[in-house]
């Protein structure tokens, strides 16, 4: 029953304003229960997949006629990413939201964000993907501007302008495809594109799609909005933003279009490889000079997204597995780091690393979870970040891309250095005078951070069964490329 992933969040998004008027706590309860239900559905969607990909045609109309929803390996992976971080952020924001006014609006926007993300991931129709991409964008613009301070509004405005330009470019590309093949179902488009003579048109659409989705996911030439938007957003929202939103809006949609509709070609994969390399190096070099905790994390998001794009751009099966695995891991430890930065800000009131005086003694749980996250982003063996970076580097060597592999190793070193700096200033540094008034953050925030930390360690230790059950079917979907169409229309 595929439409559950959209029915539940939309229904509860419409219910929350009314529930919020009746009783204050009801809205919070509704949002959290909907997120937990979604997580439960996405976990057992792995087992649905055992019996092959599912197609659900909406309104009873067969695939090319109406809109259809598709559940295949890639969708299951993205559903897991979206709902795990969604539950963690919502549980975290039970206490965090006390700093903000009108939590009812916050929970409505959050469940709309979840509805947009889930709807975008399971939709099998190009224009439907654009509509849900737009829901996610507008919900994240409003959430970035939720605390109405001057910096947040300015960051939200910049994010809004660049996001709308990206949406227009994507809509223009969809228009060109519609003009040349006049159908909107992804499978139908790819089957009629294979024998269509217009090569230049497809290349131009490819260029527009890459520019639009790279703008949405903050890859380097288009990353202007990301370092401002992430620090400005409230902590659970910046965890969702960098952990999930830039991945689903940017990378997932790019992969779906590139691999399944237009079909990967040498040009496209080399563009992806070079985009990845540039984003990796520029992102981490910019991150060194940062003293604002969240800004540093935002720059690291750009470099880690560059890793994922580099891995998948290689095109070899191992590269794609490495890229997708890193996508999953990055969403885990990056949102954990953002939640930690929110906890530090919640307790001490400042995000500047140099003003923090080592809070590990007063905030044991936060510093422990942030240690786990920092080690796994730096790629220390037992934790999850190490395995995915290792697979990508091996795949790079195998694919003969020596420069890329060396850049990967160099970036891993610099990431390690930069996160040791974070640990030293924020947590480990022994403070001389007694730091008064810093208490550990309330329970629910700790619960969310522990949940993600345990997941980080768990995926790190048992990464082989995890890769086999979730990442491999996702990479097979991408490796199939355009005969995705036969699969959908055939079934």
């Amino acid at each position, binding site marked *: 029953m595929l439409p559950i992933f959209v029915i539940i969040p*939309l229904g509860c*998004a*419409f219910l929350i*304003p009314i529930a919020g008027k009746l009783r204050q706590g009801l809205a919070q309860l509704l949002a959290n229960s909907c997120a937990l239900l979604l997580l439960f559905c996405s976990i057992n969607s792995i087992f649905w997949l055992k019996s092959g990909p599912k197609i659900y045609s*909406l*309104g009873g*109309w067969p695939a*090319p*006629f*109406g*809109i259809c929803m598709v559940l295949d390996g890639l969708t299951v992976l993205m559903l897991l990413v979206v709902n795990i971080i969604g539950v963690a952020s919502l549980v975290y924001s039970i206490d965090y939201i*006390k*700093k*903000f*006014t*009108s939590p009812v*609006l*916050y929970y*409505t*926007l959050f469940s*709309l964000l979840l*509805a*947009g993300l889930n*709807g975008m991931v399971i939709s099998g129709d190009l*224009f*439907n993907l654009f*509509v*849900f991409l*737009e*829901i996610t964008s*507008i*919900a994240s*613009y*409003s959430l970035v*501007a*939720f*605390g*109405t*301070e001057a910096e*947040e*509004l300015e960051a*939200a405005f910049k994010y809004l302008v660049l996001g709308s330009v990206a949406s227009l470019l994507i809509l223009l590309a969809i228009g*060109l495809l519609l*003009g*040349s*093949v*006049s*159908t*909107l179902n992804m499978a139908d488009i790819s089957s*009629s594109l294979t024998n269509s*003579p*217009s*090569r*230049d*048109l497809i*290349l*131009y*659409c490819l*260029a527009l799609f890459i520019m639009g989705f790279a703008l949405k996911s903050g890859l380097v030439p288009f990353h202007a909005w990301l370092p401002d938007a992430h620090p400005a957003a409230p902590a659970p929202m910046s965890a969702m933003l960098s952990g999930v939103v830039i991945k689903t809006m940017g990378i997932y949609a790019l992969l779906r279009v590139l691999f399944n509709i237009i079909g990967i070609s040498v040009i496209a994969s080399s563009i992806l490889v070079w985009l990845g390399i540039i984003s990796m190096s520029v992102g981490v070099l910019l991150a060194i000079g940062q003293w604002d905790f969240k800004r540093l994390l935002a720059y690291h998001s750009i470099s880690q997204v560059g890793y994922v794009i580099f891995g998948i751009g290689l095109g070899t099966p191992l590269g794609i597995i490495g890229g997708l695995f890193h996508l999953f891991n990055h969403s885990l430890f990056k949102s954990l780091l953002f939640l930690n930065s929110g906890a530090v800000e919640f307790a001490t009131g400042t995000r500047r690393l140099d003003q923090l005086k080592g809070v590990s003694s007063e905030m044991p749980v936060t510093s422990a979870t942030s240690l786990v996250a920092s080690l796994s982003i730096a790629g220390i063996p037992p934790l999850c970040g190490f395995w995915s970076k290792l697979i990508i580097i091996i795949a790079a060597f195998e694919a003969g891309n020596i420069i890329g592999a060396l850049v990967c190793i160099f970036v891993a070193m610099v990431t390690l250095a930069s996160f040791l700096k974070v640990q030293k200033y924020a947590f480990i540094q022994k403070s001389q005078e007694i730091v008064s008034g810093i208490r550990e953050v309330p329970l629910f925030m700790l619960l969310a951070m522990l949940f993600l930390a345990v997941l980080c360690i768990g995926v790190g230790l048992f990464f082989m069964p995890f890769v086999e059950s979730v990442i491999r079917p996702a990479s097979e979907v991408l490796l199939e490329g355009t005969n995705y169409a036969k699969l959908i229309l055939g079934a």
Partner: protein
Amino acid sequence: MIELSIILILMIIGAVVAMEIDDLLSSIIALGAVGIGLTLEFLLLRAPDLAITQLVVEILSLIILIRATIEVNKPLAQAVSLQKKIMHLAYFCFAIIFVALFIRFSYLAIRQLPDFGNPIMKMGGQYAEQALKKTGATNIVSAIILDFRGYDTLGEATILFTSVIGVISVLRLSGRKR
């Protein structure tokens, strides 16, 4: 065919006027003119549904835009430092290069589109035939947006709902508790 391009050229002129004029209010009114031109285009291109919706949405966005410029009293004529001039120059030539490349490559792509006036109506044709039988609606566009592709319209209604909640959350009194 000719009147379409005339109106389109008038819209381009209106757009340039909206961009270059200094006074904000007249720039918004020029945008309104471009919108009305778009409504005329829709009527000429046999899309009455869209003409009504575009006209009415145009009026509403004008009211909202005028609300944004109502308090402006001083024009922006301050001295601009050298550093900002260089940055504007950089933006300026970046935009020119982007626009030139954009039109150059779009010309290549447009050449391969089916020429204007006879589209490949692969799905459109089927919708037209089966609209009355399958849904009973005589307005085929309504049949498409509410029955064949009703899921899009659910997404559409959610977009409007999100932007309403977004506007209310941005314009509320104070974001954070002091």
